């Protein structure tokens, strides 16, 4: 068999068995060797005991998605081994501890059992030692450099204790040596990087990094998966950068605090998922009315209600569009990947301050928690920061809500002499005097509504160009339409089909509101066949496109089982769209497997 340069590795077990740290060590090793890698963690909302399956794909940089079936499986319990055998690629190998797990009688998968107890009997007892031993064996089989792997182990554990790092290095080395002596196959994969040191980052870390680089000084949130890791990343770092990370009593407080901070003159942001966002919406409308800048990160998970708490979905588009009562200026942006998330976070703050309005940044679990290797140079610290029009010295009469051609009224910050005003959530005139329950003034109401909404012309101008990423030639057999986090996997599928002789185009939406209709319509009309691919039930982007352009996309590929698209079934579904008798809606489901043994 020819040597392959790419591997898909699954690590499965129960939550709390150290799967995340094994994954981190793998990712860090890959990054330091100059490989590309992409990890998606499929887990349950239980701190200990839920099933976890970490899917990692590594190979030449960049790696576009978590891949499909596995080449190597590290099984930390019996059911993980039994249930995942059917997802093995040809020539795959499964690593497991023979002390606790039995190899099935007949399988084509190489059974790579390791006697962990025997190998580590002389070492201090460590509850998660088996995964380090198994990881050591895996790294040998993938022909990775021991010294780089050792460095990754030391970083992983050195933070806590030097002895713990030494212990884990020894554990990994016992696994490595055992594999060297006992396993002659599978050895058909050799992961070789280009030697360029890269970094590993998640979507949520990129939000944090963008916040710090873009001058966000206030982040408030209430814990909610999959947004919480933004809070976790910022909490120990914020004070270094003149920033405050505030855990609030609920999402109502979080958003209202952020609006207060934005009003007082600092860049402010909140992060939550759909349920928390629902609580925030009244205040988001207030930010529109009082014209205060605020950025809300909405990292979607499966809904409705508590839904799939630890699973991905793109089901909140209409919630974002319809957030709060009434009409007010706002922008809704989506990000494609962690690097893009870094820039979009900063862009969101620029728009929020320039137009004095709320900006919603839409992510989802698949992007927020995705761990990828990226080039550090792709994240540029020199970013444009636009603070909007702020009056520092007031001369003459100051009108906070002055009716201007752009709709933007230069604002004063509290503390500025002569700039005093009131910012009311009631309808108001240019001074901030209410035109609601004190006296009604239909013409003033009309004028002020028009003033606020006029800002959307500028917002559209600023967000239209970025709104759609277009890949592939205009002359294509099929045009794929998607939004946000699915970009790279759709692009991977597009390339695969193109490689097979079917030229395909991809239109990926990054701006969802104001909808870039003028840019979208000609692209949509140029398509021969067209399919919209979304991680939701209802085809929400397709509906928005029809609403804003009148263009109906006849085909759909959808997935709302909580797992992200997987490359092989996705490519097959898109291939089916090439045929004139393609089904109008194809619903993909990740696995035929039902419950894990322990839950049956």
């Amino acid at each position, binding site marked *: 068999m020819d040597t392959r340069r790419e591997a898909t590795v699954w690590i499965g077990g129960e939550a709390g068995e150290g799967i995340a740290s094994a994954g981190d060590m793998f990712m860090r090793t890959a*990054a*330091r060797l100059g490989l590309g890698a992409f990890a998606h963690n499929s887990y349950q909302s239980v701190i200990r005991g839920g099933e976890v399956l970490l899917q990692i794909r590594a190979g030449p940089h960049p790696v576009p998605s978590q891949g499909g079936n596995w080449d190597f499986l590290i099984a930390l319990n019996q059911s993980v081994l039994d249930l995942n055998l059917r997802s093995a690629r040809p020539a795959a190998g499964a690593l497991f501890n023979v002390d606790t797990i039995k190899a099935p009688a007949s399988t084509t998968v190489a059974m790579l059992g390791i006697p962990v107890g025997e190998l580590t009997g002389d070492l201090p007892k460590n509850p998660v030692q088996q995964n380090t031993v198994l990881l050591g064996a895996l790294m040998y089989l993938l022909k990775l450099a021991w010294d780089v792997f050792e460095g990754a182990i030391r970083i992983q554990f050195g933070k806590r204790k030097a002895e713990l790092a030494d212990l884990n290095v020894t554990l990994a080395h016992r696994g490595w040596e055992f594999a060297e002596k006992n396993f002659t196959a599978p050895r058909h994969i050799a992961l070789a990087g280009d030697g360029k*040191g890269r*970094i*590993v980052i998640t979507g949520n*870390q990129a939000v944090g*990094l963008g916040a*710090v*680089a*873009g001058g966000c*000084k*206030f982040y408030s949130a209430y814990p909610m998966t999959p947004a919480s890791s933004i809070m976790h990343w910022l909490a120990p*770092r*914020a*004070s*270094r950068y*003149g*920033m*405050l990370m*505030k855990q609030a*009593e*609920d999402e*109502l*407080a979080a958003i*209202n*605090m*952020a*609006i*207060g*901070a*934005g*009003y*007082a*003159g*600092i860049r*402010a942001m909140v992060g939550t998922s759909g349920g928390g966002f629902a609580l925030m919406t009244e*205040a988001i409308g*207030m930010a529109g009315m*009082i014209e205060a800048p605020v950025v809300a990160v909405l990292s979607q998970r499966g809904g409705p209600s508590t839904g799939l708490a630890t699973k991905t979905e793109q089901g909140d588009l209409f919630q974002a569009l319809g957030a709060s009562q009434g009409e007010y200026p706002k922008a809704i942006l989506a990000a494609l990947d962690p690097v893009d998330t870094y820039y979009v976070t900063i862009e969101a703050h620029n728009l929020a301050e320039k137009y004095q309005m709320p900006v919603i940044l839409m992510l989802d679990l698949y992007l927020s928690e995705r761990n990828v290797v990226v080039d*550090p140079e792709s*994240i540029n*610290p020199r970013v444009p*920061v636009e603070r909007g029009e702020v009056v520092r010295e007031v001369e003459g009469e100051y009108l906070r809500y002055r009716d201007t051609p752009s709709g933007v009224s230069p604002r004063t*910050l*509290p*503390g500025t*002499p*002569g*700039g*005093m*005003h*009131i*910012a*009311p*959530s*009631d309808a108001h005139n240019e001074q901030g*005097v*209410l035109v609601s*329950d*004190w006296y009604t003034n239909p013409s003033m109401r009309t004028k002020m509504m028009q003033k606020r909404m006029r800002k959307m012309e500028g917002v559209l101008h600023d967000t239209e160009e970025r709104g759609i990423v277009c890949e592939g030639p205009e002359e294509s057999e099929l045009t794929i339409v998607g939004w946000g986090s699915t970009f790279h996997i759709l692009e991977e599928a597009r390339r695969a089909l193109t490689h097979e002789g079917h030229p395909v185009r991809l239109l990926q939406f990054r701006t969802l509101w104001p909808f870039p209709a003028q840019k979208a319509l000609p692209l949509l009309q140029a398509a021969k066949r067209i399919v919209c691919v979304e991680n939701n039930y209802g085809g929400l982007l397709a509906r928005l496109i029809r609403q804003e352009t009148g263009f109906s996309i006849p085909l759909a590929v959808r997935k709302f089982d909580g797992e992200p698209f997987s490359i092989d079934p996705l490519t097959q579904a898109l291939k089916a769209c090439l045929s004139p008798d393609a089904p109008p809606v194809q619903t993909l489901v990740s696995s035929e497997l039902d419950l894990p043994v322990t839950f049956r």
Partner: protein
Amino acid sequence: MTTAAEYKSRMRQTWCPGCGDYGVLNGLLNACAALGIERHDLVVVSGIGCSSDLPHFMSAYGIHTLHGRALPVAQGIKMANKNLTVVITGGDGDGYGIGAGHFLHALRRNLDLTYIVMDNRIYGLTTGQASPTSDKGHKTKSTPAGNPECALNPLALAIVGGATFVGRGFSGEPVHLSEVIRRGLAHKGFSLVDVFSPCVTWNKVNTYDWYRPRVVKLETEGHDPADRNAAIRQALREDGKLPIGVIYETDEPTFAEEEPSLQGEPLVNSRIGLTDEEWNALIGEFR
């Protein structure tokens, strides 16, 4: 030196003639003047309700926020710029009903804020429904058979909730009220000033005449505001008397003093952008 009148805006005050809120506004104007607060450094934040119109009648910065959300907005302002004097004004429905959750957490957070609640024991702006401080048995539009729920005790709640200043005033005692508000503003930490502010239109039970024989000034009883147990006894008084004055005051570190991010300059003055050194260190964490 700014006079009390100069803290007043040109806006016509829209409360009903005789409303207790006039007394609260005047008390606040006097307290601001007594403390010499610069108008442009003062932010008055309110929620929704009759009393939440108050910021419009002042010449200062103000936000008239959502129903029940004045406290978090005010806290955001204070966290962003700790040099500002931030006062929150609202009613009992706003603060003890829809905003009750924020009230409890504002107490224990102890930011240096002053929260003035104009408590009229009724929903006024929505034309007379029961409020969280309506007495049991009170007949209102929403409780025609008499309120089946007992009244919330904001003073007791505040003291046990971690407030570092709890005071109460009465609109019918304007000089005394100004002084309670002044002491609340001067206090370092979260101050609750609960004010009996009668609604002359919708509450025909808890009127000025109802309050007058019941209120008792704590100063005349030798109450020691530093004594937490004595304060709780005052808040839970069962002799039919309603204590007014400073009930509890203690000196505890404020949120700004405890929070690492708020040491030094206010956040609003903090530098935007990172040095190369800072950036490289940050990126290095991902290697």
